[in-house]
C-alpha cells in the first residue's frame, strides 16, 4: 500500500497469541498511566524498573492485554497520544469486553513493531493519523479483550471444576455463583495466560455496554495535571548532550562554508557537526547549545533555494488554477451547461501556508549503540521512523527501538513521511559515533521557520443556476502542491491526483447533476508541505460550504433548507445538519449587527455540522459568540472525549481562520514565534455546544472532523451579518 517503502522485512513471523511471560517489574517500553496513584513515573527514560520494588508477575494475553498479579490490567496502546485521548479511548474498549473495573485499567505505549501493532488501515505500517485510531482498533481490541476474558473464564472453570458457561464476569471479578467461588483477574491471570483463546470470541451486544458510551475518567488527567506525565521534552539520559541545528534560512539553501570557532568557545559546547539539514551544535545543556548556535557563522548558498514571496506564489497559483485540468471528478457535462447558462457565478478563494505550531516543538532523544539505536520521541509514524533510522545507521529496523512518549500536540506535524526530525537526531548521534546520547531540540523559531506547512492553495468556483434557482452545474478548480508526491506515500497518488488535495470536494454529497473537480498540482516550489489537521478538508470544506451558501443566497433560498434538499440521499449528513440547526435555533431573527452561518462536512468517515453566531461592529470588528456543533461518529466511545475533540478542532480552526498565515518574503518565512503567528486566546474562545448523534455504527474518528465546518460556518455568519463574503484566509481582525 505504501509504494516506495519496502516494509516486508519489517514484518516478523506471526507470534502465537498464546504466550506466557513472567516479567518482574515493568517493561521499559514506556510510561505507564492509570487510574491508581501508582509510583510508576519514569524520571529517566527507559529506566525499566518500577520505583516500587515489590515484584509483580505480568501475564501477557496477546499483544494488547497484560494482567498483573496485582490485578492491574495494562493495555498496550499502539497509537500516539498527542492529547486526543487514545490512551483512554482504546483501554475503554478493552475494559468493556474484558468486563474489567475501570479503576484497574492502565495504558502503556506499545513497542514499535508493525507485525503486531500496525494501523490496520495502513497495511504493514504502525502509525497514527487520519483520525483512524479508534476506527481501526475497534474490532481488533474488542476481540483481543473478549479473548482474554474467555481465557480468564476457562482458567476459573478449570480451577473450580465447574462449567465455563456458568461463570460470570463483572467489574474485574470472575464468579461462579453455584459453588460460591470468586477470584480477581490478578488471581487468575497466570493460569489464564496458559489457556488457548477462542478463534472467534463472543463479543458483547452494544446494548450491554457499561463503559463505552459513558464518561470514564481519562487515565492521563492526573499525571498531566500534577506534572508527572513525561513528554520527550522532560526526559534526560545519563551523559546526554543537547543538540540544536542551524537550519537554512530559505528552503533548499545549502551550506557553502561555516566557522565553528566562536560556537566551540561557548562554555558547555562539545561539538559542531554538519548534517544534511544544517549545522548541529551539541552541548551539555540547552542554553549552551543555543548560545553556541547563535555564535555559529554560516555562509549559505541560495542557488537552489526557493526565493519567491508568498504573494508571488499566489499569483502563480491563480494562473495554475485557471488551467487546472486533471479531473478528480467529472459528472455530466459542466462545460455545455455553462455555455448555455444565462448566469455563471464565479468566485475565487485563496488560502495561505499554515503552521501546525504544536505546543511541544519537535524533539527526539537518540542513544546509538553498536547493536541498537534507541529513540525516545512522540513518534507518530513508528514504522517510518524505524525505517529512516535503519537507513542512516545501517542497523536493521528491528534494532531501532522506539519508546513512544506523550506528544504535546501534533496536528499532523509529527507524521512526516521522511521522518525529518527523527532522521536529523539519528544523523547527529551517528556524527559523534554514538559517543553520548543526543537530545535534539527545536525551538519555537525552528518550528515556525524550518518546519512543514499546510499547503497554500488557490481555488476557482463556478456554478450555474437554472430558472428555478436550482444548481445545475458546479465546477471546482484548484492549484496546490502535492503532499504525498516525492515521499514514501507516493503510491497513494492515483493517475497524478493526490487524494489529499481534492478530499472534501471530490466527494461533494449535494445532488448536482453536472459536477467537476479539476486539480493542478504545482511543482517546483521548495516549501515543504504536510498534512495539517483535516488536510484537504481544511480548504475544500471552506470553498464548498462557503460557495454553496452564496449560491443559496443568489437563488433566494435559505442556506439550511437548500442543504436539506440536496442532501436527501445522505442521512448521516442530514442527521448532523438538522440537529445542529435545531439546537442553534436556526431561523430566528438575531437582530442588527448579528449573524448566523451553517456548514456541514464529512471527513474521515465522521459527519459534523456547525452553526456559528457572530456579532459585528460598525467598524467591521467582530466576535464569535457561539458555536453549536453536531457530530455523528458512530458509537461514541467516550462522549466527553468526543466533545473535547470537537471543541479543540473548533478552536484550532478558529485560530487559523482569524489570524494564522505563514508568509514568505524572498523565500524566507516571516513568522518566528507566537508574536507574529498569533493563536487564539482564552478571551476569544466562543461558547461551544456539542451534540452527539446517537448511533450504532462502528466508531469513526473525531480528531480532525471538527475542523472543516468551522471556517465556512463563520464566513457564512459574517455574510449573514454584513452581506459581505470571505474569499481569503485568514479573515483578519475586521470583516469589512
Amino acid at each position, binding site marked *: 500500500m505504501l509504494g516506495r517503502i519496502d516494509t516486508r522485512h519489517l514484518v516478523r513471523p506471526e507470534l502465537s497469541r498464546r504466550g506466557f511471560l513472567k516479567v518482574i517489574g515493568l517493561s521499559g517500553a514506556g510510561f505507564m498511566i492509570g487510574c491508581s496513584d501508582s509510583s510508576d513515573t519514569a524520571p529517566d527514560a527507559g529506566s525499566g524498573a518500577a520505583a516500587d520494588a515489590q515484584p509483580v508477575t505480568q501475564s501477557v494475553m496477546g499483544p494488547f492485554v497484560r494482567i498483573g498479579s496485582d490485578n492491574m490490567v495494562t493495555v498496550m496502546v499502539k497509537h500516539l497520544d498527542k*492529547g486526543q485521548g487514545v490512551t483512554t479511548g482504546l483501554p475503554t474498549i478493552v475494559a468493556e469486553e474484558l468486563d474489567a473495573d475501570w479503576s484497574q485499567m492502565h495504558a502503556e505505549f506499545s513497542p514499535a513493531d508493525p507485525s503486531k501493532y500496525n494501523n490496520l488501515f495502513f497495511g504493514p505500517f504502525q502509525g497514527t493519523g487520519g483520525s483512524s485510531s479508534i476506527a481501526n482498533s475497534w474490532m481488533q481490541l474488542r476481540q483481543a479483550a473478549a479473548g482474554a476474558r474467555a481465557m480468564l473464564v476457562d482458567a476459573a472453570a478449570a480451577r473450580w471444576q465447574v462449567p465455563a458457561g456458568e461463570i460470570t464476569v463483572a467489574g474485574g471479578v470472575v464468579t461462579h455463583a453455584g459453588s460460591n467461588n470468586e477470584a480477581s483477574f490478578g488471581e487468575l491471570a497466570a493460569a489464564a495466560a496458559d489457556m488457548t483463546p477462542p478463534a472467534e470470541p463472543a463479543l458483547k451486544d452494544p446494548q450491554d455496554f457499561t463503559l463505552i458510551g459513558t464518561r470514564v475518567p481519562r487515565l492521563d488527567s492526573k499525571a498531566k495535571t500534577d506534572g508527572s506525565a513525561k513528554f520527550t521534552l522532560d526526559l534526560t539520559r545519563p551523559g546526554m548532550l543537547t543538540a540544536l541545528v542551524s537550519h537554512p534560512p530559505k528552503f533548499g539553501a545549502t551550506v557553502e562554508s561555516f566557522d565553528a570557532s566562536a560556537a566551540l568557545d561557548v562554555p558547555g559546547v562539545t561539538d559542531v557537526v554538519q548534517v544534511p539539514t544544517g549545522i548541529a551544535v551539541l552541548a551539555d545543556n540547552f542554553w549552551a547549545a543555543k548560545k553556541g548556535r547563535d555564535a555559529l557563522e554560516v555562509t549559505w548558498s541560495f542557488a537552489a533555494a526557493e526565493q519567491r514571496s508568498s504573494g508571488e506564489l499566489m499569483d502563480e497559483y491563480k494562473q495554475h488554477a485557471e488551467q487546472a485540468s486533471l479531473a478528480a471528478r467529472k459528472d455530466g457535462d459542466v462545460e455545455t451547461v455553462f455555455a448555455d447558462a444565462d448566469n455563471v457565478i464565479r468566485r475565487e478563494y485563496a488560502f495561505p501556508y499554515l503552521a501546525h*505550531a*504544536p*505546543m511541544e516543538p519537535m524533539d527526539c532523544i537518540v542513544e546509538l549503540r553498536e547493536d541498537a539505536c534507541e529513540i525516545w520521541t512522540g513518534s507518530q509514524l513508528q514504522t517510518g521512523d524505524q525505517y529512516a533510522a535503519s537507513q542512516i545507521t545501517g542497523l536493521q529496523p528491528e534494532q531501532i527501538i522506539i519508546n513512544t512518549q506523550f506528544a504535546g*500536540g501534533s*496536528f499532523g506535524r509529527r507524521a512526516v513521511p521522511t521522518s525529518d526530525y527523527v532522521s536529523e537526531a539519528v544523523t547527529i548521534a551517528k556524527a559523534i559515533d554514538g559517543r553520548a546520547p543526543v537530545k535534539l531540540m527545536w525551538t519555537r523559531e525552528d518550528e515556525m521557520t524550518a518546519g512543514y506547512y499546510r499547503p497554500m492553495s488557490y481555488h476557482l468556483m463556478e456554478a450555474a443556476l437554472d430558472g428555478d434557482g436550482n444548481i445545475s452545474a458546479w465546477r471546482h478548480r484548484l492549484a496546490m502542491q502535492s503532499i504525498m508526491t516525492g515521499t514514501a506515500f507516493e503510491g497513494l497518488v492515483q493517475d497524478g491526483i493526490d487524494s489529499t488535495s481534492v478530499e472534501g470536494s471530490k466527494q461533494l454529497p449535494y445532488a448536482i447533476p453536472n459536477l467537476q473537480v479539476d486539480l493542478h498540482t504545482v511543482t517546483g516550489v521548495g516549501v515543504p508541505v504536510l498534512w495539517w489537521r483535516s488536510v484537504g478538508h481544511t480548504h475544500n470544506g471552506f470553498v464548498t460550504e462557503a460557495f454553496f451558501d452564496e449560491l443559496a443566497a443568489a437563488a433566494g433560498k435559505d442556506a439550511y433548507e437548500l442543504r436539506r434538499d440536496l442532501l436527501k440521499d445522505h442521512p448521516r449528513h442530514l442527521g448532523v445538519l438538522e440537529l445542529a440547526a435545531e439546537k442553534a435555533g436556526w431561523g430566528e431573527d438575531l437582530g442588527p449587527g448579528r449573524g448566523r452561518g451553517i456548514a456541514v462536512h464529512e471527513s474521515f468517515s465522521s459527519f459534523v455540522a456547525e452553526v456559528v453566531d457572530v456579532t459585528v461592529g460598525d467598524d467591521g470588528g467582530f466576535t464569535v459568540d457561539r458555536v453549536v456543533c453536531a457530530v455523528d461518529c458512530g458509537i461514541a466511545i467516550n462522549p466527553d472525549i468526543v466533545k*473535547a475533540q470537537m*471543541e*479543540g478542532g*473548533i*478552536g*484550532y480552526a*478558529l*485560530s487559523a481562520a482569524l489570524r494564522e498565515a505563514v508568509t514568505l518574503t524572498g523565500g524566507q518565512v516571516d513568522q518566528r514565534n*507566537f508574536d507574529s503567528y498569533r*493563536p*487564539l*486566546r*482564552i*478571551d476569544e*474562545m466562543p*461558547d*461551544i455546544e456539542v451534540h452527539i448523534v446517537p448511533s450504532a455504527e462502528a466508531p469513526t474518528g473525531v480528531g480532525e472532523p471538527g475542523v472543516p465546518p468551522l471556517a465556512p460556518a463563520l464566513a457564512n455568519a459574517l455574510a449573514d451579518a454584513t452581506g459581505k463574503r470571505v474569499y481569503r484566509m485568514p479573515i483578519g481582525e475586521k470583516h469589512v
Partner: protein
Amino acid sequence: DIDNAMRGNLCRCATYYRIRAAIHRAAAELEA
C-alpha cells in the same frame, strides 16, 4: 476576570473552555 488573568497563557489545543470551567470549579471548592 478569568479571561484577563489567563490571557497570557496560550493553549494550542483550545481547551480554554475547560480551563475556565476548572477555574470556576476550583474557586467554588476553595471557597467551600
